[in-house]
C-alpha cells in the first residue's frame, strides 16, 4: 500500500516578522524557513507504519517555491522513499483549494491509499488542506487525528480529538485522507546516514502548467496587521523584585486568593 504525506515550508516561528510593503502578508525576504511542525507528526506516523511492514512506500509532496525543496530533503532524510515537488514561485498566494487541486493532479494514477497532512500550517493557520483534498477526491477523511490503526479489510480506525479532553473513534474505508494533530507521536530526527542517503532518492519536479491546473487564488489577502491594541495587559516595568512586588499587590487587590 502506498502512502503520501503533504508537507509545507513555513517561516520559522521564532522569526521576527515584518509586514510587507503592500500590507497584505509578511515580508518573506530574510526569513529562515523550516518544515511545518504538524507535518513532522504526519510523516512520522507513516514512517512508523512502514517500519511495521504495513506500507510499501511513503512519498512526500510539497507545493512551494524552489527553496521548498529543502523540506522534501528533510522528509527523505527522515525516511520517505521519494518526493514530489510542485513548484510555484508565489505559493503563499495560492489558496488552499488551488493547492488541493495541484496535489490531486500531481498524484493522480499513482495509487495512493492513504494521504496524511498536518492539521494546520503555522503561517496561515487555514486548517483545511486534508479535508479539501478529500473533498476533491471524494474520499472519506478525519481531522485532528490522535491515533490510527490499519485494520483488515481496507479499514482504518482513527481517534479524533474533540474538545475538553474527549476523543471520537471513527472507522474509515480506504482510500482516506487524515490530518494529524501534534502529540500523536514523537517525530524522529534525520540521522547522518539518512541525510547522506536522501541525496540518492528521487524527487519529481512538476509545475501547475505540467499538471494542467490553473493555479489562481479565489482567496485574496486584503490586509495583515498586528492585533488591535487598547485592551490588553497593563505592562509592568522595573527589576524582577520590583515587578514581583507590584504583581503581589495586584493579585491581592484583584483576585482574593491571597
Amino acid at each position: 500500500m502506498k502512502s503520501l504525506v503533504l508537507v509545507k515550508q513555513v517561516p520559522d516561528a521564532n522569526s521576527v516578522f515584518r509586514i510587507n510593503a503592500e500590507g497584505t502578508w509578511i515580508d518573506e525576504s530574510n526569513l529562515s524557513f523550516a518544515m511545518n511542525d504538524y507535518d513532522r507528526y504526519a510523516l512520522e506516523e507513516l514512517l512508523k507504519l512502514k517500519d511495521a511492514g504495513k506500507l510499501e512506500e511513503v512519498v512526500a509532496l510539497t507545493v512551494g517555491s524552489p527553496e521548498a525543496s529543502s523540506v522534501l530533503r528533510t522528509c527523505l532524510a527522515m525516511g520517505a522513499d521519494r518526493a514530489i515537488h510542485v513548484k510555484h514561485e508565489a505559493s503563499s498566494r495560492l489558496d488552499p483549494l488551488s493547492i488541493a487541486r495541484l496535489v490531486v493532479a500531481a498524484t493522480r494514477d499513482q495509487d495512493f491509499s492513504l494521504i496524511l497532512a498536518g492539521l494546520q500550517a503555522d503561517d496561515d493557520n487555514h486548517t483545511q488542506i486534508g479535508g479539501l483534498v478529500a473533498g476533491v477526491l471524494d474520499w472519506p477523511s478525519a481531522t485532528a487525528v490522535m491515533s490510527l490503526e490499519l485494520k483488515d479489510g481496507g479499514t482504518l480506525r482513527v481517534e479524533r480529538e474533540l474538545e475538553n479532553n474527549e476523543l471520537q473513534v471513527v472507522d474509515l474505508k480506504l482510500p482516506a485522507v487524515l490530518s494529524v494533530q501534534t502529540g500523536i507521536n514523537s517525530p524522529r530526527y534525520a540521522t547522518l546516514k539518512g541525510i547522506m542517503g536522501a541525496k540518492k532518492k528521487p524527487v519529481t519536479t512538476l509545475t501547475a502548467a505540467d499538471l494542467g491546473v490553473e493555479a489562481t487564488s479565489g482567496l485574496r489577502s486584503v490586509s495583515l496587521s498586528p492585533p488591535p491594541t487598547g485592551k490588553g495587559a497593563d505592562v509592568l516595568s522595573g527589576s524582577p523584585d520590583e515587578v514581583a512586588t507590584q504583581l503581589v499587590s495586584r493579585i491581592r487587590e484583584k483576585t482574593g486568593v491571597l
Partner: protein
Amino acid sequence: MQSKIIVLAEHDGKVPREISLELLGLAHRIKEGSEVKAVLLGSGIESAAAELASRGAAEVVYVEGTAVENYNVDAFRKSIEPILNDEAPDLVLIGHTPNGWDVAAPLAGRLGVPLVTGCAQITMSDERTLFTRKAFNGKFVHQVEVTGARPLLATVDKGASAPFDGTTSGTVRKIESRLSLEDLRASYIETRAGETGGLDLREADVIVSAGRGVGGPDKLGVVRELAEALGGQLGASRAVTDAGWLPHEHQIGSSGVSVSPKLYVACGISGAIQHVVGMKGSGYIVAINKDPDAPIFGVAHVGVVGDLFEIVPALTKALREAKGR
C-alpha cells in the same frame, strides 16, 4: 440586495450548542435584512430545531435519520451538499469546532469553492464580503476576501460573536435522511474521555501554566514552585504536553480543558488561539513572556516582559514573604 445566509448548526443531542446561537447572531449582523436559515442534522432533534427557529433562524431545515444520529463526515457532507445546492445561499457559516472544520473542508472541496477558516468577524456589502481571521497563531489579524465563488463558506471561532438577542418565529422543515449506514465510508464508533490522572483543573481557583518558553522538562521547577506558593495547580500549553514535559491532563486549551480560575498565571506562553480559547474565562490573568508582541498580552490583565527565570522566582519569593506577614 437581500442575501441568504445559512448556519450549519450543532447540537448536543437535545439542545443547540452555544456556537450555533452565536452563528445566528453573527448572520444577522453581517448584513442587515439578510434571510437567515439553519441546517441541523441528527436523530430526535425536532425540539432543537424549534429552538433555533425561535432564536434567529427564519427557517430550520433538519435532517433526521440513523445515518446522521452521530457526527460522521461522510453522512454529514452528503446530507448538507444537496441542501446547499437547493437553497443556493450567498454565505454558509460553520463553527470552527472539531466537527465543524472536519466537515467544512470536504464540503468546500466537493463544491469547488474556497473556505475561510477561524473567522472572528465577517462583514458583507453588495460589493464585497470581508473575513477577519488570525494568522501566525494570533500574532497577526488577517483580512481576506473570496473572489468569484458562491456560496462563500466560512468557519467562525467560538465566542467570537454574541448570540442573536431577539426572538423569531421561524418555521421548521424535516427531511428524512435516505442514507444507509452500509453505504457510508465513515462510521462513528464511540466518543470516549482522554487519559486523565485525576487532575481536574476546572475546579482550581489558581492555575500557574507553563509554555514552550520554559524550555525543557528539567526547568519546570520554577513554575511548579510558583504554583505551590499560590496554592494552585500546574497547567500547560499544548507545546509542553506534546513534548512530553507534562502529562496531557495538564493541557489547557481548545483540545485540553477550558478553565476559569480566579487567577491564571501564564509563564512563557505565547498565547496561540487554541490556548487562549481555554483560559480567557479566567478572573485575572498575569502573563510573563520575553516577547513583547506575544498575543498572550492581548488577553492578560497585567503583564511582565522579561525572562521568566528571573521574574517567576522573584514573584514566588515575594508571595512567600507576603503570606508570611
